[in-house]
C-alpha cells in the first residue's frame, strides 16, 4: 500500500491505495466520487473522464499513484452552492440526458472544450467530444447543449 495526497474539486485529500489501482477506482471507491463512472474500463468510452492538472483524461487508464500531488476536477466539482454549472444546466435544458450514465464524462469534455475554445464551431464540438460514447441520445442534443452553453459568452460560431 502507498499513500498519496492530492486535491479533488478544491479539497485536499489523502488516502492509501494499492499500486495497481486505477485513478477511476481510487476516486470512486476510495474517495467516494461516484460521478466518475465505471464503464468500459479500457479507455475507450470516456465515461470516466476527469480533468487532471487541467488535462482531460480517462481515469480508468491512469494509475492512481500518478495522481500524487495532482489537482483533479470531477463532475461533482462543477456546481457551486447548489447551483448547476452552466454546462450542466444546458444539458438539462437541451434534453441531452437520457439514462445519464455517459453524462458526467461528456460534461467534463465539454467543460474542457469551452475552457480552451469558448466559441467552437459544430465541427470543433464534435471533435471535442469524440472521446466519449453515448448509447442513448444519438449525440444531437448533446451537441445542442454544448452550443447553448457556449452562447452566453458570445455564441458558438456556425
Amino acid at each position, binding site marked *: 500500500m*502507498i499513500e498519496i495526497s492530492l486535491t479533488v474539486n478544491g479539497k485536499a485529500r489523502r488516502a492509501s491505495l*494499492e*499500486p*495497481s489501482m*486505477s485513478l477511476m477506482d481510487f476516486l470512486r471507491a476510495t474517495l467516494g466520487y461516484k460521478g466518475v463512472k465505471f464503464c468500459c*474500463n*479500457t*479507455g*475507450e468510452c*470516456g465515461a470516466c*473522464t476527469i480533468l*487532471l492538472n487541467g*488535462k*482531460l*483524461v*480517462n481515469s*480508468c*487508464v*491512469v*494509475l492512481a*499513484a*500518478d495522481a500524487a500531488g495532482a489537482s483533479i476536477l470531477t463532475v461533482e466539482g462543477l456546481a457551486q452552492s447548489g447551483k448547476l454549472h452552466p454546462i450542466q444546466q444546458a444539458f438539462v435544458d437541451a434534453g441531452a440526458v437520457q439514462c445519464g450514465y455517459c453524462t458526467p464524462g461528456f460534461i467534463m*469534455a465539454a467543460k*474542457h472544450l469551452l475552457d480552451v475554445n469558448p466559441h467552437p464551431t459544430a465541427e470543433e464540438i464534435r471533435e*471535442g467530444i*469524440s*472521446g*466519449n460514447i453515448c448509447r442513448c441520445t444519438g449525440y444531437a442534443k448533446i451537441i445542442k447543449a454544448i452550443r447553448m452553453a457556449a452562447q452566453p459568452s458570445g455564441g458558438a460560431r456556425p
Partner: protein
Amino acid sequence: MEYFEPKSLREAVSLLERYGEGARVLAGGTDVLVDMRFKEEPPCLINLKRIPNLSYIRENDGNLLIGPLTTIREIETSALVRERFPVLWGASHQFASLQIRNTATIGGNLGRASPAGEMLAPLLVLEATLRAAFADGEKTIGLDSFFIGPGKSALGAHGLVSEIQVPRPPRESRGVYLKHAVRGAMDIAIVGVAIQLTPDSERRTVKDARIGLGAAAPTPIRARKAEALLRGKAFEDERIREVAKTAAGESKPITDHRGSAEYRTWIVEVLTRRGLNLAWEQTESIDD
C-alpha cells in the same frame, strides 16, 4: 505486485535486468492498465514517470529529438512537428482520443510494438533512430530493425527507449498519414498508411517515395517494392495504381474482428493510392 518508481534510467534498466519477463514497464498506462485489468497483474510494475528529463521535443540541426515519455498530445500540439514532420503529426492527431493522447506516450507506443501502433509506420517512413538503454549500456537502433514481430521489439525484456531521433525530411518533401477505422481516431486502425514523397527540383519526377503500412503485417513495414516502382519516375495515374497494387501485395494482414485479410489488403491499396495523390498535391505548394 511489486511496484517501483525508479528515479533514473539506470535504476530502471537494472530493475528490468533483475525481474526480466516478470516486469511490466509503465509509461502512460493506456495499454498496461488494460492488460492489468483484463489479463493479469504483473509480478512487478516499473513506473518510469518519476525519471526526469524524458519528456521533451527538441530540434538539433533540423533533426527532431523526442523523449520517450513525451505524450502523444504534446507531439500533436508541437508546431515544429506539425510543420516539419507532418506524417508524424498526422498520426498523433488521429491517435485515439484527446483523453488517451494526454496520457499515452511515444515510448509506450514503440515499446508495445503493436503492428497497428499509430506512430510506428510514420516513424518507419521518417527513418527514425532510437537510443535504447540496457543494463550494459546504450544502443542505437534504426527503426527498420526495431520490430521483430507482433508485440516484439529489439528492446526484448530488458531494454527501454531513451530517445527517438527523427532526421529532417528534405524541404521539398510532403507526408501524410491516412487511417482507416470505423470510429474515426478512437478505434485501432484497420489499416494505417504513411506516405512521404520528395519531388525532383522541377517537380517532374518522384525523387524519393516512402510508403509505411500499419496493421497490415506482423510488424509495421515499408512497402519497398512499391517504393522502387515510383522512385525516379514521373507521377502518373497508371503508375500510381500499379504502385498501390504492389503495396497491397507486400502487405500480410490478418483476419480479425476489425476486418478480414482480404478487406485489409484492399484498403492498403486504396489508402496508398489516396495518400500518394494527397502527398503529391501538397508538393505543389512548396514555398519554404
